[in-house]
């Protein structure tokens, strides 16, 4: 049927008459040369492209045919390659590694070397050193922006269960600048503010209190505990373990340490709860699981608490002060978002 259409169409279309003539000539030539046999595929002039055919039905038909032919070629090539590989056996060259964005990531000069002394020295003397030297234990204050709606309030409560030694306070229109000295006076180490927009939490400000850095994140994909599928029972009050994945640059390191200092230094392994901050392409995924080792090779995970993704917007040196603070890092869209393979965390 397709072949019949092929021969009828060129005659009826007024626009494809040139093609029809070319076809007829080519066919005539081919037939003259080859003699008998099915009519060969017409040879089009090299500047011709399928997208130039004006008739939609014909264009679609030609494109499908081209696609089918290409697919068959690719399958054939693949089979050939597989056969060669099998034939060679052990001597076959190693499989080529597919390119991923992580593979192709542009080299960041601030990537931390595990045995870099300068970094180690910096980290021993920065604001979190007192936590990592076990001098201070964390105490967290969780609050929201003005007039929080239900989702935000529930998220605060759930976060308070995830993070041990945390307290939730209502904002009631207080200015953070006045709140912070009071927190310092009562020996809080962290201030977490969940910003809300249109009844949905969309921002997170993490401020290390004595005079530590303040990080401002964009929060997205917030799922409260009861919206998760296959959820476990409520989290117990044991201190969870912390997993920090893929924080490779200096900036990432400092953010990672900031997250690590939220949780008490000695996790209670009996509780079998783990908090994960996984950085992938500058998005930090927060998860809260309960795990169980089935044998030494298999772990079972059960998701408990809320989950959300964070994207760092700015890191400021002192405590929260958006006007006069000194910013270590701000996300500038026109400078930093130009390459798909450049990440900062």
């Amino acid at each position: 049927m397709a072949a019949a259409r092929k021969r009828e169409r060129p005659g009826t279309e007024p626009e494809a008459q040139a093609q029809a003539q070319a076809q007829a000539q080519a066919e005539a030539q081919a037939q003259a040369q080859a003699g008998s046999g099915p009519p060969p595929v017409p040879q089009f002039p090299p500047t011709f492209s399928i997208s130039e055919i004006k008739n939609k039905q014909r264009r679609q038909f030609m494109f499908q045919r081209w696609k089918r032919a290409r697919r068959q070629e690719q399958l054939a090539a693949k089979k050939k390659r597989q056969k060669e590989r099998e034939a060679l056996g052990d001597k076959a060259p190693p499989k080529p590694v597919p390119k991923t964005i992580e593979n192709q990531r542009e080299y960041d000069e601030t990537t931390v070397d595990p045995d870099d002394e300068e970094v180690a020295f910096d980290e021993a003397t920065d604001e979190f050193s007192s936590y990592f030297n076990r001098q201070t234990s964390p105490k967290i204050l969780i609050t929201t922006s003005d007039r929080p709606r239900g989702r935000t309030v529930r998220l605060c409560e759930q976060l308070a269960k995830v993070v041990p030694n945390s307290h939730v306070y209502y904002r009631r229109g207080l200015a953070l600048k006045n709140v912070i000295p009071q927190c310092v006076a009562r020996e809080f180490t962290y201030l977490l503010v969940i910003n809300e927009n249109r009844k949905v939490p969309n921002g997170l400000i993490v401020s290390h209190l004595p005079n530590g850095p303040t990080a401002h994140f964009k929060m997205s994909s917030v799922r409260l505990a009861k919206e998760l599928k296959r959820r476990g029972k409520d989290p117990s009050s044991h201190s969870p373990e912390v997993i920090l994945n893929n924080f490779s640059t200096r900036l990432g390191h400092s953010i990672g340490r900031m997250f690590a200092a939220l949780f008490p230094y000695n996790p209670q392994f009996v509780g079998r709860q783990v908090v994960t901050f996984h950085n992938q392409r500058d998005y930090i995924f927060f998860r809260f699981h309960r795990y169980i080792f089935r044998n030494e090779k298999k772990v079972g995970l059960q998701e408990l608490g809320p989950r959300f993704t964070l994207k760092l917007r700015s890191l400021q040196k002192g405590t929260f002060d958006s006007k006069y603070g000194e910013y270590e890092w701000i996300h500038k869209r026109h400078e930093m978002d130009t390459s798909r393979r450049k990440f900062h965390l």
Partner: protein
Amino acid sequence: MQHDDLLWDLLGNKQFCSFKVKTKTQNFCRNEYNITGLCNRSSCPLANSQYATVKEERGQCFLYMKTIERAAFPFRLWERVKLSKNYERALEQIDEHLIYWPRFIRHKCKQRFTKITQYLIRIRKLILKRQRKLVPLNKKVERREKRREEKALIAAQLDNAIEKELLERLKQGTYEDIYNFPIHTFDKALDKQDEESETDSSEEEDDEDVGQVEYVEGDEIDESDLSDLEDNLEGEEEEEEQEQEQEQSSDAEELEKEPSTSKGKTPVKGPAHKKRPYVEIEYEQETEPAAKVTSS
């Protein structure tokens, strides 16, 4: 004499006035020089040739005056006087400039001035408090970020990453003695050692052992004693199970599903019964050399 009454008759009542805003109960006047804001015979700046207002520009208050003498010169019509920042002093200034003017205009000017100062104070107070900054969202950017987040989530393979990390920690021994698995790590270490020794021995002593006669111990377990063994094994298994139960009960309080690989708490009956002793025998043989290794 300016035709004020005529103007008012036309604008206020009969004809159209572009500054007039009509509502159900009241008429307002949108003229910027109007002193009260209402559309009245006495408040209309067009229908009064002698008129005064107080207006505020960038925090500074001015007294504007219009007199009939300048009615022919619209450019010079309104005379402006800057009022002092001091409230009482400014009121005196208004009185001084509007001396001999109608009572109504004087009164309304002072009222308007009072209101203006009050709202200027309020502005200054509010600036000191928290200010909300509205940040516009670029829809294209939001869409792009959302898509990239989805792709990053897929690339992250979170569950695998977390499991891998936890298993790493188990291997490194951060959990110390909480879990029962170290035996298997010993087994693995042993297997590795065995492999190494086997490869070594197979390479070196392959030729030497051929043809030599060796006398080897028989297996400790005879097949005729299987029945006795089964009883012994059951007893030992129960002991093991009790130990494991004690350990597992503390861990597995909240788990609803029992892992299928754990040894059953109740002895299995039926065809599986015959297979079990065979498996248990192998296990026991492997643990004995492990015990020997630890002791030495």
